[in-house]
């Protein structure tokens, strides 16, 4: 059965293998060039490095975008084209009536197919991530934003590929028609990724807190929602390569300022600050134009009342978080695979 499952999956696997090989050659050549560039442009720079860095980052822009796009799409594509049709194609074309009357049990049939194509999916995801992570290593050293590219590097994409395949296989077995199954797989996969990114990943580790004065903030300014009174906003940082979850204004007594309190502060202490005529687009942070002195006065006043508390995940916890994210998606994949297995072997219809 293993040989037959591989025979069925052979053409598409070889095609993807060829694409990966082409990608490997491309990234190998350009990646080595990038490394040279890094060592000649960025490393020797002593002062005024912003220019050198920007120059470096602007190289191979097309390939950068392409690889980002590839990492975004690849797991979904695996789910749709390898996961969903796995069982569905046989159900739709009637070949399951041929397959299930050979001398193999249905259990063995479904387990083998899931294993062969599933492991291939995992391997493809892993190789892809390996190549992309390696290619970007110089750029990542310059950008120092590892949590920003979290889902396109290292081991997390392996989890995405496994999950996309598994949910595709399950939905395919349940829905029994290829096109609807593919659509449902895409939807379920996107939903899961968004949900984990927004709601699960920030809560996987216990964050740390850092207090700093207003002066050390990366950004400080005013934001007006829906054209009303602006409130103070700031974004703090806990160092390069760390992940800022939130920044709060805190009084010296430890009280966390609410939005209305921040609005009241601006109203009281920074009367010249207001929404520009015509109103700013809601939700955008505005650096009040044309009143630099008033801005500085306001900032000084705010600095006397508030300091910032940054909630963050430190740089050093990156790999722990990668393993946790991989774990989450592998667990989801396992559930989906179990569901698929149960559906195919128990429901005889």
């Amino acid at each position, binding site marked *: *059965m293993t040989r037959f499952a591989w*025979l069925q999956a052979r053409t598409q696997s070889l095609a993807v293998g060829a694409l990966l090989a082409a990608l490997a050659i491309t990234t190998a050549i350009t990646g080595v060039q990038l490394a040279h560039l890094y060592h000649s442009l960025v490393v020797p720079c002593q002062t005024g490095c912003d220019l050198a860095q920007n120059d470096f980052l602007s190289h191979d822009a097309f390939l950068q975008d392409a690889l980002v796009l590839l990492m975004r799409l690849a797991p979904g594509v695996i789910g749709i084209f390898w996961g969903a049709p796995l069982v569905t194609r046989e159900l739709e074309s009637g070949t399951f009536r041929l397959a299930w009357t050979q001398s193999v049990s249905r259990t063995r049939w479904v387990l083998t197919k899931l294993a062969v194509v599933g492991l291939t999916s995992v391997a493809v995801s892993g190789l892809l991530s390996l190549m992309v992570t390696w290619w970007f290593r110089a750029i990542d050293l310059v950008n120092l934003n590892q949590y920003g590219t979290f889902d396109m590097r290292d081991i997390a994409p392996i989890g995405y590929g496994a999950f996309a395949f598994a949910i595709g296989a399950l939905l395919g077995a349940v829905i029994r028609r290829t096109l609807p199954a593919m659509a449902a797989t895409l939807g379920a996969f996107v939903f899961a990724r968004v949900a984990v990114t927004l709601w699960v990943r920030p809560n996987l580790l216990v964050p740390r807190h850092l207090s700093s004065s207003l002066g050390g903030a990366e950004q400080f300014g005013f934001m007006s929602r829906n054209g009303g009174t602006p409130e103070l906003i700031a974004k703090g940082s806990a160092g390069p390569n760390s992940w800022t979850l939130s920044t709060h204004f805190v009084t010296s007594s430890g009280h966390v300022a609410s939005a209305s309190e921040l609005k009241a502060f601006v109203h009281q202490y920074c009367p010249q600050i207001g929404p520009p005529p015509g109103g700013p687009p809601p939700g955008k942070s505005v650096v009040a134009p044309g009143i630099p002195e008033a801005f500085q006065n306001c900032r000084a006043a705010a600095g006397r009342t508030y300091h910032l508390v940054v909630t963050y995940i430190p740089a050093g916890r990156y790999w722990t978080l990668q393993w946790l994210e991989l774990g989450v998606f592998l667990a989801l994949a396992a559930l989906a695979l179990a569901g698929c297995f149960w559906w195919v072997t128990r429901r*005889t219809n």
Partner: protein
Amino acid sequence: MNASVEAVGLGKRYGKRWALKDCTLTIPSGRVVGLVGPNGAGKTTLMHLAVGLLAPSAGEITVLGDRPGSDPAVLERLGFLAQDSPTYARLTVRQHLQMGEWLNPRWDAEFAAGRIDALGLDPSQRAGTLSGGQRAQLALTLAVAKRPELLVLDEPVASLDPLARREFLQTLMEVVAVQGVSVVLSSHLIADLERVCDYVVVLVTGRVVLTGDVDELLASHHRITGPRRDPASLPSSQQVIEASHAERQSSFVVRTSEPILDPVWTVTPLTLDDLVLAYMRRDRDAVASTTTGLAVAR
């Protein structure tokens, strides 16, 4: 002689509809059994129950002495050809044979290769590009080469042209002659089955209305024609299956084990076709009268 298929009160339900209901039959082994019935009669359902693709909703079925399911030991002894001969369109003929070899412990590779050769099929041709008749022959080869004890074929010739149909049946009969497999094949055309079957099971709307050895059935049923008469006036040894009356003439299909000696009757032979149709019509009329009976009672 053992039974190849035995069903007791077998039923299969889809939602509220019973595709097969109260089906009780015993199919003897070593025969070529024809499963006849109009579309929707439950032939495919019965076959899928026999090969383990479906599970019964009621009653039970044993095939070759075992409960059908996905147990490899049972599947090994069965060969199944589903309707429209499903094959993997993107795999070649040779790859299909490889599949047979990998997935069946009793696979006879020499026979399979010999068959493909005799059929003139190109082993490197993809199954999707074969004609309907060629696909049916490929599927038959796959089913037979696993050396089953029972072959179950679901409307194998329904979509084939007359030449392909004849060639398929020739191949099948050759296999029966040489290997002695039991065969159950279904069709909604009795003409297809007349040549090859020696046992027949007739299904109508999910119920069995007639089973028996073909020679025996043909020997015990006659059409008698004579002056107009009430069917009740016939002797009790002659069971009336069907009666039709013209102004001065009556014609009956009767079942009897005794010779018809009354000279007033002209006795004409029945074909299997006539016989099966008579039983189907009788069943349809019986169902109609029970429904009207219910309506009246209410």
